[in-house]
């Protein structure tokens, strides 16, 4: 209960998010480790070199990074009680997150037509499961942001609720950082 004094002076919800993130590190760590250990083990193509589109994904990576910036600004706006800016930046997070997801949908669709499916080879299986679960995390984040935006539009997201935004922001930044790792491991180091 955040209203009570806590041992460490940190709100419990914030600490809970950090603890949850530690657990999530093991989740994505296991997925990435599997991807690495199955790299080059596919018996048939398409291979990563043949199919991964680094320029396109660089753009969507940039988009996701910018969404983290918008998240920081949204939190700041909520904390200072600037409702107009809070809505603007929360909206920006949603749009940028949505763009990233749109890029992923396009990419998955494109790969599917190029012959890379879940069942095609180990690359397909490990790639789709890893990036798909990351995408699912982004989706949850976008839904969370939409919820916060609706709260703000209804006038229920004043500075006294800034912890709500801070905890959501922690999650969002984490999902962003995970993408940086995935982008590096899957796309840049092949």
């Amino acid at each position, binding site marked *: *209960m955040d209203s009570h004094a806590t*041992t460490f002076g940190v709100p419990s919800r914030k600490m809970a998010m950090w*603890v*949850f993130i530690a*657990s999530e590190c093991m989740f994505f760590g*296991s997925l990435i480790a599997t991807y690495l250990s199955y790299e080059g083990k596919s018996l048939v193509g398409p291979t990563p070199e043949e199919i991964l589109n680094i320029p396109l994904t660089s753009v969507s990576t940039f988009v996701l990074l910018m969404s983290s910036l918008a998240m920081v600004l949204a939190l700041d706006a909520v904390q200072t009680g600037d409702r107009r800016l809070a809505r603007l930046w929360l909206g920006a997070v949603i749009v940028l997150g949505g763009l990233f997801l749109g890029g992923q949908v396009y990419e998955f669709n494109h790969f599917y037509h190029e012959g890379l499916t*879940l069942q095609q080879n180990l690359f397909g299986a490990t790639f789709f499961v890893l990036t798909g679960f990351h995408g699912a995390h982004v989706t949850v984040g976008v839904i969370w942001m939409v919820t916060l935006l609706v709260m703000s539009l209804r006038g229920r997201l004043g500075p006294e609720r800034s912890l709500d935004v801070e905890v959501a922001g922690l999650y969002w930044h984490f999902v962003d950082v995970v993408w940086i790792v995935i982008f590096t491991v899957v796309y840049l180091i092949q």
Partner: protein
Amino acid sequence: MSVRAMTAPGHESLYSGGMRSWLTTVDHKRIGVLYGISALFYFVVGGVEALIIRLQLASADGTVVGADTFNQLFTMHGTTMVFLVLMPLSAALFNYMIPLMIGARDVAFPRLNAFSFWTFLFGSLLLNLSFLVGNPPDAGWFGYANLTSKQYNPGMGIDFWLLSVQIMGIASIASAVNFTVTILNMRAHGMSLMRMPLFVWMALIVQVLMLLAFPPITVAFIYLMFDRFFGTHFYIPDAGGTPILWQHLFWIFGHPEVYILILPSFGVVSEVLPTFSRKPLFGAPFMIFSGILIGFLGFGVWSHHMFTTGLGAVADTAFSLATMLIAIPTGVKIFNWIATLWGGHIHFKTPLYFAVGMVGLFIIGGLSGIMHASPPVDIQQHDTYFVVAHLHYVFFGGTVFGLFAGIYYWWPKITGRMIGEGLGKLHFWLMFIGMNLTFFPMHFLGMDGMPRRIYTYAADLGWERWNLIATVGAFVIAVSVLVFFVNAVRSVRAGEPAGGDPWDGATLEWTMSSPPPEYNFAIVPVVNSARPFWLHKFGPTRDISTRTREEGTPPQPDTPPERIDLPSPSGWPILAALGLSLVGGGALVGLWLVLVGVAVLVFGVYRWAFQPLERLGHPTFGPAPGGGR
């Protein structure tokens, strides 16, 4: 929100109220009781499964069950005992005791706590639903690929298993987040980390292990789910995959899981021994750091389950050494327990019997564990009954005895009534004898080469005598469990009132009435010792062994001097848990049910998130304005 009138003292009303009050409870004590009842129920279920296994193996060429049923029985027995009995039984004690022991009025997230319990319960029901459709899982609790592949195991049993264990994994992670934050952030003023009771310390380590160990097995299950539902080839060698991947992910979870199962018992014993020796725990800081070291090393030893997969000499050596290292902190604990008893003014009560029994039996299991740390020895013993003997000395001798020590120790606190000492000791001796009769002969059988998981064996192999003895032992254990239930019912019906502090305890839970009031502490205590209640009762002396117990008033008044706001009961966590379980169960029925589950889950989570947490603006005592329940 409705408010119940509460009566003091005794607070028997803690458990009163109809079905609805139990379904919507967010009180950690009630949730603890729910976990306990569920776990004991499944203890009987898993026990019956074990008895059928033992009947089948009692003599050569047994015909009680066929091979298929036998496979289902040992799979369900293992899965049940690990996920449906030992973990929830630990969770029961964690839930009930941790807030009391750290001086908190509840856990950090009471509704998340309710969600964890219901998710666990629905997951466990889904697992056992597989009996009703006539197709329980049959690939062992370890579910090695490719025993679980669609090609070799097309039935729905494996799907039930992988979905239900995943659901229960979500419950465990949610619970672990909750209790990690509770222990770190909800302590009473002055309850520094080094003043925390050992039980709470071990619980904290267990939470961290659950946080870090459950994700890898979740990933392993996701791959298996994709292999079975969507035709991927994560574990299929024909497509370049390897079944060994499952073993790595499973045991990266599986070995820490061993400590998830044993450390709660270590914690209980570290509370029981000092109380009944009337001495502080010997070397408490060493006990704490040993526990941390065990938890830490536990993540670096998983491949000792995989020596026979051919990882190579370097890997085998590293994992072997790391495994042997764990013997050091474990040994420290054992010596400290013995040193705690040494020279103590020992009160021979049932909890002490179980605690000492745990230490003795765990030593046997620990020693055979060190044997397996050596790859050549392990390869000899791999998949034989020697390993079955080892793991049951650890889980039955270690965990079950330790948890029963905890049940007898805290029974008066939880129920408000004493539990029979005579029947309790009978329970102990029957269980102790039965356990050794059952599992010690398995060492001999294993050494003689009897493989695990065979449903029958030929008469000329010479395994009949020890198998028969093991079966007799299993039934002695069953009788001991029956004695426990008789004792429990008698205590609840007509046990003598326990009072707040029946054992002359040292920790905070004994400072309040039994059972405690809903708000736990009328006044949140200020703690200035690792043994705050002994300090209160006896003053600053380490030697309390000769001091007699004072019949003083406990420091907790019956009536709080100020208004206390408690979290309001909520039906949304159980609804969210139901939605999550429908998503899992729906995967076996059809997409429409998955979507219904998602809708219920989202609806439940949103209602939960926007429901005010506190019962605001009402006095704790007396009927609320407007009354009603």
